[in-house]
């Protein structure tokens, strides 16, 4: 299931990459398809893992992530199943934010912990870690739609849009549970959250005068990507 998911997700992300995304900073799992695409177009693709493999361990005790990169440089921050592996996801994004251009975008891909497969895993195997999915062996954080939006809010990105990756398992049970629990995300395996850097976010780069510019409102009418399914 997850091989197909990875393949389809890479294709979906490829379709979301726009011509203006010339310089892409990627954190998380490798994304060979996107890397090839960007590089073939003469763009720049940097994988944080290749510069500093300790990105997962950034935390209060280890708050900095030294990267030999120019600040305010990248058009797109691609967070590909990285938040789930990070001890302190908010701090990770905050650290990477400074390498983003003022108008930079963020695509966060993260598994939905509330997918029906996690519930079934919980009931039958008792939170058994797996090779991929929300309960992947390397995962230490778990996300929902709400928590991803909140994370963006806290680290200075404005929510623009979302794309969901849906996998139906046990559809009748899922429908029943969705109604009872008022949870519309039981069949959603993962989210792509699309955001834009808020230039007026006042608590970062506060010594830089450019941060005092008026807030830039996101264009809510930007193209709304469709679900892979």
């Amino acid at each position, binding site marked *: 299931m997850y091989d197909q998911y990875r393949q389809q997700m890479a294709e979906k992300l490829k379709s979301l990459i726009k011509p203006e995304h010339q310089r892409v900073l990627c954190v998380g799992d490798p994304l060979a398809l996107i890397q090839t695409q960007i590089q073939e177009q003469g763009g720049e693709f940097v994988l944080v893992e290749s510069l500093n493999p300790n990105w997962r361990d950034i935390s209060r005790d280890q708050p900095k992530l030294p990267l030999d990169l120019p600040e305010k440089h990248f058009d797109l921050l691609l967070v590909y199943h990285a938040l789930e592996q990070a*001890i302190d996801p908010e701090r990770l994004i905050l650290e990477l934010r400074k390498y983003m251009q003022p108008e930079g975008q963020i695509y966060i891909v993260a598994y939905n912990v509330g997918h029906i497969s996690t519930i079934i895993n*919980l009931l039958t195997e008792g939170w058994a870690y797996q090779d991929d999915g929300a309960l992947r062996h390397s995962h230490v954080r778990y996300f929902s739609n709400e928590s991803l939006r909140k994370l963006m809010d806290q680290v200075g990105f404005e929510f623009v849009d979302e794309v969901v990756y849906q996998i139906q398992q046990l559809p009748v*049970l899922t429908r029943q549970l969705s109604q009872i629990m008022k949870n519309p995300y039981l069949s959603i395996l993962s989210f792509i959250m699309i955001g834009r850097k808020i230039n007026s976010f006042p608590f970062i780069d506060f010594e830089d005068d450019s941060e005092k510019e008026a807030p830039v409102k996101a264009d809510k009418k930007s193209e709304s990507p469709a679900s892979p399914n």
Partner: protein
Amino acid sequence: MKLAFFPLFHPSSFDGKGFQGTGIDFMSAYYLTGLLPFLEKHFPDLQTCVEITLPRILLQRPDLVVIWSSTPSFEQVETVAEVIKQNLEIPILLAGPHISHLPTALPAHVDIGILGEPEIPLHQLLGIFSKDLQAGPMKYGKVPGLIYQSRGRIYSGSPAKSIQQIDQLPMPRHSLLHSLPGRSIPLVSVSRGPHSLMGLLTQPPSGRVRFFSPERTVAEIAQIAADYRQLYSKWPVPAEMLAYIFPVYIADELFLAQPERFQAICEGILAQNLHKSVFFMVNAYPSQLNPETCRWLQLINTRKIILTFPSFSTREAPWMPACSAELLTRTLDVCEQYRLGVIGNFLLNPLAETTRREMAHTYWTLWENRRRFDKLKAFYLPPMPGTPLWEQYQQQYKLKAEDLERLPWQQFDPERFTPTVPLVNRTVDAESFASIMKGFQVLAADDGGVPDQEKAPMKQDQAYQMQLQSAKALQKKYLHPGMDVLEVILDESFSLKPYLASDFCDLQQLKVEGGQLKGPAPRPVDLIILRGSLAGLREPQAALVSLSQSLKPDGQMLISLLNAQNIAFILSALNWSLERSSYPYKLLRYYSENTARELIQSAGLKILDLEYTIMNNIQGFRDSVEGLLKRFETFWPLAVSEERLYIMEISMLVKKNRK
């Protein structure tokens, strides 16, 4: 003669489900609870009433009305005075902090404004009006402390005297506030001085700070406790529950200002067993809290500290102590140590010179510590007339009374905060300030990892008692005098050390931080205890292998963990609220019995004993389990063991597998 008091509230106090009773207006109206008994003592035939809506005032048909207003509600004074005048044609008096500080703002339909403390002027006025309800300026013009209308002009007299011996004032009638829902019963232990934030915002001005004596303060607390018992006399509340249910809110920030007085009050509370009848919520500045103060606060059954602090700065406002990251962190540490919940009241703009750098530093420190607050509130402090902020605004903007209508009194709304609104801070423009304030509000809206209901005093106490019982049981079963024990700690609240006698056994500690063990075990030990800490390790197998090297040949490990297959956890996952559940943010990995067994075996360890903590005695839990299983049985024919869903915690005693 019938005298009606009409405390005005900002319209937002009536939003939603009726009267909310929040904010400056509510605390300002508290003054009436002391003023009424004072007047009744001197005028035994005086009839009084307190009403909070205009129709009720008209219905009461008083002979005289006193409107009580602080700055947020002041813009309503003109309107209500006009309606009262048209309908009742009675003298209208106006009192409160706003008119006292801005006497020239006396509205046209108000006859008399009372400046400063109202007791003495009002006493003299009632003496005049009780003889002649039609008395005019000729009769009351010489009363000190007034401003009044006469023939279209405004006149003011000499300043009124303050009451010197405030202990002689009658006890406030707190029951007046019982009819106003939404707040704990407040108590102000310092009276009417200019040097406290509460005094500046909510009380009429006076010349100097005067403290109530410890005896008087204790007597007032005793009265509040008696009032509660009277009010709820028909409720079957067991005596042992009183200390969890009835709050006394110490509203002034000078309660802790004089250590000897504070200690005398605490001793009085303990001597009268008042700490068994009520619990306390105490206003404080970070600089006032130290281990000694907190020890006393804990002794008198203080449950919450309302911690007021401004943006970090080395400069200090004359009316508010400065704060720093170190001070705030230290304060949170000491409050945690004495199990005092902290409600953070963060004031963004008290100093004109606060820089963006200082605000950002404050933000990130709060962000780091956000889960240590029971609640965090971000406040914009408006330029209240009479406060130093008002003076700063005056120097900068020359504000007039009508400008006050545009200021955000109750709730700062960044979307409506426009660059035309004057801002006292000289280092940021209004637009940047709005986004800064919005950032703080977003941060403040984050309730952290502990749900509200678990912040309640009784829940906190239950959690503590459970920890205590669990530690005692563990000691009885596994610990012996003279043992070498290593405790692996993820969170101080799970630590065994505070519950053990210091000479019982040699207990070393090893912390888990950032998903890793912070260093090796100091030396071989008989027992390693991991109470919940396994879940904080990113590489649990490697950590267990490493720890097992520190065991003596017959050494054992006691591993306890929360069961992820528990119904509460499953419902959290279903409701996509896992990350907001009571499971602390420090937990990185979750286990059930099966997965824990696999982990332990893979680390070369053998299970000697297994224990479960089961919770199946709560009807709600049983309903949830049965309901969930019924759904699953109907639509997904796979057997799920019901018993497992009731297991809250699993404890495993393990040792090295010699094979």
